[in-house]
């Protein structure tokens, strides 16, 4: 590799960062759009929220991971605004340290946005992974209402809906496995990054999840339809600039394509070299 190409390789990330920063300032996403023509996933979530009673308590199983949270964050924040607009109280509980850190950050943001403190219930962090989920389920089902380790701040009140914001560790699959059999009346919805879609989608088809938002397109479709009313400052309706996302994806496609192409050329040359004269 020549010195010039080596230098170009080292400067490529910086150049891409500069291009992304510049494109994030562009005023329009003309010709580009995230919202999906198939709005079934977003409609399912909206229908689930429409079915909530007045002033519901919504349990948020908040366990995203730092690596993928950026993908779902606009949708999650819009969901907060949507729920608050519907008069819901939000009860946060986390079963992973990363999820707890992000829950603390989001609760802080909601408080800064002047959301009434009485509508935010911080149930904290519960260790033990699946055992923690069993403890939560037992408290919700009333089987272990006086548990010293379960989410006692619920004070015996049953949530009308559980929304699982999932990541790589504790996600909708664990909730369906541990909570759904113990609290069959509790409906569970989920917002997860795309990487979990193949794992979680069957639970929607099976009815164990009442709604699932698992791709940026589904998230954008939901955000476009959500009515956040007085809580527009809580929501993150726009999401990331589509031009920036497009450029990042194109950069990835070019780099991956170059790797595949060079390998295919090598294979073709190797095949020819091996041919009998």
């Amino acid at each position, binding site marked *: 590799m020549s010195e010039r190409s080596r230098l170009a390789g080292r400067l490529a990330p910086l150049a*891409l960062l500069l291009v992304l920063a510049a494109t994030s300032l562009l005023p329009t996403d003309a010709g580009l759009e995230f919202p999906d023509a198939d709005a079934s996933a977003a409609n399912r979530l909206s229908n689930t929220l429409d079915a909530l009673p007045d002033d519901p308590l919504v349990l948020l199983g908040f366990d995203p991971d*730092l690596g993928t949270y950026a993908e779902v964050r606009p949708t999650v924040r819009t969901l907060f605004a949507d729920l608050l607009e519907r008069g819901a109280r939000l009860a946060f509980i986390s079963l992973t340290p990363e999820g707890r*850190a992000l829950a*603390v*950050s989001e*609760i802080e943001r909601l408080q800064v946005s002047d959301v009434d403190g009485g509508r935010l219930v911080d149930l904290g962090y519960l*260790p033990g992974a699946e055992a923690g989920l069993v403890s939560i389920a037992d408290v919700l089902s009333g089987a272990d209402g006086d548990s010293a380790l379960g989410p006692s701040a619920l004070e015996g009140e049953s949530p009308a809906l559980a929304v699982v914001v999932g990541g790589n560790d504790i996600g909708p699959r664990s909730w369906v496995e541990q909570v759904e059999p113990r609290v069959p009346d509790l409906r569970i919805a989920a917002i997860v990054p795309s990487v979990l879609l193949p794992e979680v989608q069957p639970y929607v088809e099976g009815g164990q999840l009442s709604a699932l938002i698992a791709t940026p397109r589904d998230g954008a479709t939901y955000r476009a339809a959500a009515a956040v009313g007085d809580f527009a400052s809580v929501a993150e309706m726009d999401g990331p600039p589509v031009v920036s*996302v497009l450029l990042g994806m194109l950069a*990835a496609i070019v780099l*991956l394509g170059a790797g595949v192409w060079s390998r295919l050329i090598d294979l073709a040359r190797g095949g020819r070299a091996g041919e009998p004269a």
Partner: protein
Amino acid sequence: MRRATTPAIVIVVGVLLLVDFLVVNDSLSQLADLAVNAVILIGGGAAVAAVAALAVRRAGDLWRRRGDPVGAVLVLVGIGAMLIAGLRPGSAGATDPAVRWLISALLVPIAATLFGLLFFTTIAAARRSAAGRGRQALVLVAAAAVMLILLLPFGGEAGDRMSAAASWALDVPIAAVFRGILLGVAILVAVVAARTMLGVGSADE
């Protein structure tokens, strides 16, 4: 004798939780709660022990002047700052404003930046693996590139068709393979659990 302890605990706790799930009985329920709470406490204790071990390890590195001294100091200062913020007299613990500030203003942005930078290293690593010798890596990276193309956020009819193709790929072939893997893992876990409970073979066999 020691080798029988772990399977015995697994058998007792597993059967207890299973029976508690199937039979309504207060005594059984209390016993099952005891087991679940014990696991929760062990999980919490393990997390604290892990942090303590990390602090001891980094302090040892500093003391013996080995490894990365800057990294060790940062780890220790970070742990110390969080402990002081959460445990100082008058602190509200995990909900204290100082703890919330440390998490919201420092921890989350730093970690998000770190993961953002992983974009470059991940793509570069994928490119290198595709250009290498393995044909499996070639197929993997080629499939990823095709999925990325299908997921490009174009509008109009072309965008809808690409989105529909991406959804089909995720819902049918990828989901089928993924479910197959999950089913295989579940069967494997069930077989290993049954072997453990029946005393067939051993964990380190």
